[in-house]
């Protein structure tokens, strides 16, 4: 009896927690008149794709979606390569400044990146003078900052995965005549792939969700905006096209949701591992 009560209560909580997401998807499929109705109901009998069409055509969401995808994927690709190399160096080699570097990696994760908007804004402005593609108003500037923000955690987390590969394997590969680079990319890299998946997802989400830097860096180039910014632009006091906004939110949330579901088990164990060092 008591267990039934507890389970019923837990299910109600799960419903409440999931409700905002349910409402988002539902509203995205509702016809316009049901959305601006004074008596909203939690169902619809006439699902339609109108809101998605409006979001994609009027609001040009397809373009912003593509921009977000580009930024996130480039960040993930680069951060995989760079963090893999750095993690290997920090676990496989013994050198003097190793501990110092590790401590700095940990501390740098705690720096509130939001505080760095002002100097990064000026940095990107001067970068843009010589390399426009990485300057203000270009996607390159977003790639650079998110790469920098995701690296410390990615390296920190990958360390554990690299350390788990037995050193004997490297000795065996060397005996078989494999060069250092060959061992690195053809033996070690595939072996730490699970760790790479988990860190990639975090880097992806970080870049995908960013609102502050997109807002600061992409000032006048509307065609280079990313999803979070585009979404916010459509929120206007008292004259919101809620249907299109919810359709846009759905488009923005679904990729992250899928990624999260795919790796949640690894993410949790990886996070626990990262916390434990």
């Amino acid at each position: 009896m008591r267990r039934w009560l507890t389970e019923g209560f837990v299910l109600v909580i799960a419903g409440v927690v999931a409700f905002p997401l349910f409402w988002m998807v539902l509203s995205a499929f509702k016809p316009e008149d049901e959305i601006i109705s004074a008596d909203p109901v939690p169902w619809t009998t006439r699902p339609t794709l109108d809101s998605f069409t409006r979001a994609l055509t009027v609001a040009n969401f397809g373009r912003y979606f593509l921009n977000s995808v580009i930024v996130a994927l480039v960040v993930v690709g680069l951060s995989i390569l760079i963090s893999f190399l750095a993690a290997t160096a920090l676990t496989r080699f013994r050198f003097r400044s190793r501990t110092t570097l590790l401590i700095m990696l940990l501390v740098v994760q705690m720096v509130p990146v939001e505080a760095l908007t002002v100097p990064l804004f000026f940095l990107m402005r001067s970068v843009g003078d010589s390399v426009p593609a990485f300057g203000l108003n270009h996607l390159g500037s977003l790639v650079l900052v998110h790469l920098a923000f995701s690296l410390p955690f990615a390296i920190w987390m990958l360390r554990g995965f690299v350390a788990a590969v037995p050193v004997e394997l490297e000795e065996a590969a060397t005996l078989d005549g494999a060069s250092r680079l060959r061992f690195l990319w053809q033996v070690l890299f595939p072996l730490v792939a699970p760790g790479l998946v988990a860190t990639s997802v975090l880097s992806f989400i970080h870049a995908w969700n960013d609102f502050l830097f997109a807002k600061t860096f992409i000032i006048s180039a509307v065609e280079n905006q990313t999803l979070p910014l585009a979404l916010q632009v459509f929120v206007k006091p008292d004259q919101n096209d809620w249907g299109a906004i919810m359709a846009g939110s759905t488009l923005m949330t679904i990729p992250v949701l899928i990624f999260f579901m795919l790796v949640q088990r690894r993410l949790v164990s990886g996070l626990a591992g990262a916390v434990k060092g």
Partner: protein
Amino acid sequence: MTAKGQGRTAFAYLAPALLVLGGLLAYPIYQLVLISLYDYGQEQVSGGAPLHFLGLGNYQKLLGDQQFWGVLGQTVAFAAVCVVGTLLVGAFLAILATRVRTWVRMTLFLAALGAWSTPAVAGSTIWLFLFDANFGFVNEVLGIQGFSWTFDKWTAFGLVAAQVIWCSFPFVMVTLYAGIKAIPGEVLEAAALDGASAFRTAWSVTLPLLRPIILVVTIQSIIWDFKVFTQIYVMTNGGGIAGRNLVLNVYAYQQAFAASEYGLGAAIGVVMTVLLLAITMFYLRALRRSGEVL
């Protein structure tokens, strides 16, 4: 390989990471401090006026500014409410999750995972829509149509805090649940055999064993909730009417990019960084005390 050769290869592998981190984290931190020492406004940015060194002038201005103290207090209070709320909800649900069958637990975790992974901007807009004065479902259910949640200062803060708790309790819940599950059954059985009540077991056995994990999630939550930006910015439209819903992060942004007071904005950034680093130091010391090694 020789020690020297090792060091050389290691630095070759580290070079790209050091380049990126040095150029895009270390250098900007240095620049942040530097800019905060100057009178850096629109004219200086466009090159129309020379840079004017103020020393600690910006900080003096901040310390004498009533709004700054107000915003600082608000930030601390807002973060405190979010942290306490997140921990209570997360811990409560983690305990409940250990007492239900697998499918019920999976349902709860799936819902939590959805909330966790929703991008902050999307989450904020959804909540705004749910609590919309005229078309919102919440007002319909409560029968208070036309009531604006974002107009009043305190209901606006409350709404944002609820949204923040919604998307951050899953981390606490999942981590604590994993921690509870990792406690060996024998320990709890031994306590039961010794005649300890359920409450006594929870208080004297489970809680002390969970202490390191509780510490980690608490400090993580403090760090996250102290620097909330997106939710406040989106849900209160840039800090509320006349800036009454500002928190430090949004305040710094508004000073720098809306008021073109870049020096002042940088000074606020420095204050925030110092506060967070102090919390981090506390975190590292606590970690070390609980027996963690690098």
